[in-house]
């Protein structure tokens, strides 16, 4: 039985990725692309609050909050054409607590066969220094960004991972990793840490996101929450239960650079 399902799945997948669409020729043709962010913990679905996970340090923990900004999306076709999503509509806050935040639909994407996605984790310094009236929606400190903004050190929190662990040395056995800091440098002032990170992901299995006026593509990303802790620096909730504006935040930022993959693309 299981084998049959696998076989059918394989056939279906093969047919999905077979591309019989005529190449895009009209430069004014556009279509729709949807980005889906699926939050994971290792190989599993991320379940807040109740599910116990283990980090690379062998510490058991549960996760109560996982949220992050991704921004400045660019899509690249096989022949190297780059489409940059208009800056004003290229900031997304994904929070595991808010299911709707997993989906972001981009309209007016030029027709093309895209093979690669580039984006930034965090909010770039230009936007962080921009007039407050240019920071609406996900970037409004009163609404979208209310839980992801530092007032006292003006700037967005790019990623938050919170939870509890019996290994935590925090009094309440909690851990909180809040990573922000966009590099400072305002008014020619000193530079701070810059924890924005660039990510380049290639659609696996030679896949493409096919955009035409009558076809939409959905790019399905996985974001592995545990990768904030596991990577080039394995973070220990015993040694560092709380990291916010701290030199160690740069190490967590290096870790979150590896947090995303594109799992697959649906072409409709």
């Amino acid at each position, binding site marked *: 039985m299981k084998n049959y399902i696998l076989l059918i799945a394989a056939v279906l997948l093969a047919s999905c990725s077979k591309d019989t669409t005529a190449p895009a020729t009209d430069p004014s043709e556009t279509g729709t692309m949807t980005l889906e962010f699926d939050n994971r913990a290792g190989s599993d679905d991320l379940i807040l609050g109740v599910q116990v996970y283990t980090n690379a340090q062998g510490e058991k923990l549960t996760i109560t909050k996982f949220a992050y900004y991704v921004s400045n999306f660019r899509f690249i076709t096989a022949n190297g054409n780059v489409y940059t999503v208009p800056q004003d509509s290229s900031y997304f806050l994904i929070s595991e607590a808010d299911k709707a935040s997993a989906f972001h639909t981009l309209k007016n994407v030029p027709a093309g066969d895209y093979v690669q996605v580039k984006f930034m984790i965090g909010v770039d310094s230009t936007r962080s*220094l921009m*007039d*407050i*009236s240019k*920071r*609406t929606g996900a970037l*409004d*400190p*009163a*609404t979208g960004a*209310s839980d992801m*903004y530092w*007032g*006292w*050190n*003006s700037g967005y929190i790019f990623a938050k991972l919170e939870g509890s662990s019996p290994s935590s040395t925090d009094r309440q056995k909690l851990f909180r990793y809040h990573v922000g800091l966009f590099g*400072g440098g*305002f*008014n020619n*002032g*000193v*530079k*701070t*840490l810059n924890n924005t990170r660039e990510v380049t992901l290639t659609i696996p299995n030679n896949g493409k996101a096919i955009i035409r006026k009558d076809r939409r593509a959905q790019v399905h990303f996985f974001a592995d929450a545990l990768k904030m802790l596991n990577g080039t620096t394995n973070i220990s909730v015993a040694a560092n239960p709380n990291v916010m*504006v*701290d*030199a160690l935040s740069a190490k967590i930022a290096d870790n979150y650079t590896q947090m995303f993959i594109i799992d697959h693309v649906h072409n409709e």
Partner: protein
Amino acid sequence: MRHRYWWGQGILLPVLTILFISCNKTEQQETMPPVPENIAFVKPAGFPEPAYRFTDNPVTTDGFALGKVLFYDGALSRDGTISCASCHIQANAFTHHGHDVSHGIDDRLGVRNSPSIQNLAWSTTFFWDGGVHDLDLQPIVPIENPVEMDEKLGNVIKRLQANTRYQQLFQKAFGSPDINSARMLKALSQFMLMLVSANSRYDRYLQGRETFTDSEKNGLAVFQQKCASCHQPPLFTDNSFRNNGVAPRMYGADSGRYVITLAGEDMYRFKVPSLRNVALTAPYMHDGRFGSLESVMNHYDNNFFDSPTLDPVFRNGFALTETDKRDLTAFLRTLSDKEFITDRRFEPPPGFIPRD
């Protein structure tokens, strides 16, 4: 001291306004100059170009009026008791006179001394550690600080949106009744940008409209020689961050600028404060440790705490004679700007109820 500005559902204020106007009519006509109708930001002669981006937020009469109401309104705090003016009082050049560290909601104490709000159009950063780079973003901090107003910005916006009087004020200021964070913050900026102090005795002395005593003249000379490199006229700050040797506390030391930049060279550095109106803004330094200018003078008389970031000017025998101290103090008193602290444009709007 706490100031509550009861405004409720929009009925109380008009009533109070009428009462206020009728009560004060005679007095107002006899002793008070009329409140100017048209508000505009004017750069005083001799001041540099402002750092604030006025093109993004030009000051208008109605924007200023809205900003002033917000500044004096307890509705910006969780329980309605604390307004910006609770800690920034006009008579004290908009500081919290008499409190070493600020005193907020539920009588909770902050860790820093509230600076005066004046000449902010020329500030390149805000707060003792410079953590905020834009005046428009500044009010988020006290509103959300648990020891100050302890409220969420989003809740404040919702409260204002539900208030018909605010809808009218936003309509007047911005052309539509929409109330959002950008508009609220910009209105507050408009009020604060207008708080310009540039008419002290010192300013008039420079213009030849005032004479100085010998002591004040000597104080100015000492100041130019020893203090002006950091407290640079006409703003009396160069907007830099320095360590002037104020000893870090043994427990809970405030690392100052380092908190923001995490750069070793910024340890114990604080923003050079303006000294305009300094005689009105005791206590002094980031934690309000010195209660008088005399103590400040004693500090600058070679009482510097040595640490790797201590400013080099204080390293090689920086001392003041008793005459210097007396004269410097006399000079600093010439920086008080009576017009600024009594300017009726900045007074609480009618309906403001001070409470202690």
